[in-house]
């Protein structure tokens, strides 16, 4: 409702607001979404989540809470996971966005993404509402660990040794994925699925699912669900 292609206003970024003229309340935003460039005029109030869902028809990212409290809206923004419900589209002009719909396309050799396969094999959902956010979050979380980003549960010794990848153990995965709530409580299977992709690497690209029979190293310890539930 707040995107209007007929808005007359100048793009605020370049607008030189004349004396006592109210500044423009809409502007032009160019985003590269799942590999395709889109230029839209939007009201400044439009969040990236609403832009994706309402104007680009990408309904993968979900609006669970609209307040940063559930993670269902998680997308990759310039390669990093972010809650799209708290991002103003206008503030991210020029950004590269990947939603769950685009995960297959960023998979070497073609999709589905190994995490998507693992979620299927491990039955890592019930209703599936949180799944697009869980998947994008897991992609980001694994990249962060590989880049050596610590988490709240990273041991002292590893924290003191920057520059090395952090081993994505089950406790690490649970902590790193805590920004994604699952009302159905599929946490144990989600952690197992993500742990599988760590064990397999990007493997099992043959798609026959044969590497899923054995639990990954973290799978047993992963049985306890991430504490979660109510909104923050």
């Amino acid at each position: 409702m707040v995107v209007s292609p007929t808005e007359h206003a100048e793009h605020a970024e370049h607008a030189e607001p004349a004396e006592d003229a109210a500044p423009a309340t809409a502007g032009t935003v160019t985003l590269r979404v799942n590999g395709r460039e889109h230029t839209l005029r939007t009201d400044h109030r439009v969040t990236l989540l609403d832009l994706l869902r309402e104007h680009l028809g990408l309904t993968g990212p979900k609006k669970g809470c609209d307040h940063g409290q559930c993670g269902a809206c998680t997308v990759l923004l310039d390669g990093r996971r972010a809650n799209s419900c708290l991002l103003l589209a206008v503030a991210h002009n020029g950004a590269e966005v990947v939603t769950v719909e685009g995960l297959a396309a960023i998979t070497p050799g073609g999709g589905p993404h190994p995490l998507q396969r693992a979620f299927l094999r491990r039955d890592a959902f019930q209703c599936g509402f949180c799944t697009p956010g869980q998947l994008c979050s897991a992609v980001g979380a694994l990249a962060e660990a590989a880049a050596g980003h610590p988490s709240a549960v990273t041991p002292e010794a590893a924290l003191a040794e920057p520059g090395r990848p952090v081993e994505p153990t089950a406790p690490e995965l649970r902590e790193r994925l805590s920004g994604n709530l699952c009302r159905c409580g599929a946490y144990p299977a989600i952690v197992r699925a993500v742990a599988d992709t760590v064990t397999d690497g990007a493997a099992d690209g043959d798609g026959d699912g044969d590497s899923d029979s054995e639990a990954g190293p973290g799978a047993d310890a992963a049985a306890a669900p991430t504490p979660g539930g109510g909104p923050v």
Partner: protein
Amino acid sequence: MKPFGYVRAGSLREAAAAYAAHPDPRYLGGGTNLVDLMKLGVETPATLIDVSRLPLDAVEERPGGGLRIGATARNSDVAAHPLVRTHHPLVSRALLAGASGQLRNIATIGGNLLQRTRCPYFQDVSKACNKRLPGTGCAALEGVHREHAVLGHSAHCIATHPSDLAVALAALDADIELYGGDGSGGTDDDGDGDGDGTRTVAATDFHRLPGDHPERDTVIRPGELVTAVLLPAPAPGAVSLYRKVRDRASYAFALASVAAVLDLDPATGRVRHVALALGGLAHRPWRATTAERALTGAVPDADTVRRAVDAELDRARPLRDNAHKVVLARNLARDALTTLTTLAATARRAP
């Protein structure tokens, strides 16, 4: 949400000038708090001045071994930064204890320090709140206040400050660097005469107690920008930690938290320096100076630690429904000091 104008600032000067030139302006960092509050109608700016792309995102070593963390650096990048992890791991720990991975990727350091309270009445425009609308009263006093303050609150406001980072900065005696304000485009009143338009405020003085003016969270002036956090060089041999207690193990605000630094004299085992800051208990990080005085110069055995912590927390004035926080804080502070004493002793024995 109310319609608003948007300006992306290219430089500090531009940001300050835009603030002065536009009606009802607010600076925008990552927006993880501001956009949320705009959706709730708590914040109703007419103009957002986006400072998130200002070239203030570096983490650098300062002459003398301290660190300078730029205000637009993202929480996740600061937590992961080699200099921060090795010089002041408790800053990494405090940041990593906050929010979630995806929020930390967006949240900036300046925005983290200036985030508003999570008091549910502050966030609900249908409720009385002196912080949101001075003079309307405080719905939390007689309402749900299990998570509210036990120290330093006033009859006007019992809110706590939610930042974990701020608690670590208070314990480290960090400084906050500020620029501009009141449309002046830089006042340069830090007395250093360098004319760069900045002033610095001690982290322990940056956040306020509510008193008669709960609408002011900090001592920042209208239009002033946070440009950096300045950390001192770590004392060789000092040990530190950050711990947080919350209703769930992750992705929740603190009921109570502690940031502590301890330096023991290797010869005598006596406390040379101790800093104890408590979070989640007050309108600002609570530097436990009474406990620190009791500990300085003493051997921190179990009894001394208990007496010191009690002397501090005997000053707590819990509300109807949050006396548990005082117990949490006592145990947390004692445990932190005991852990650090052991760590310091081990560090001393190590070659």
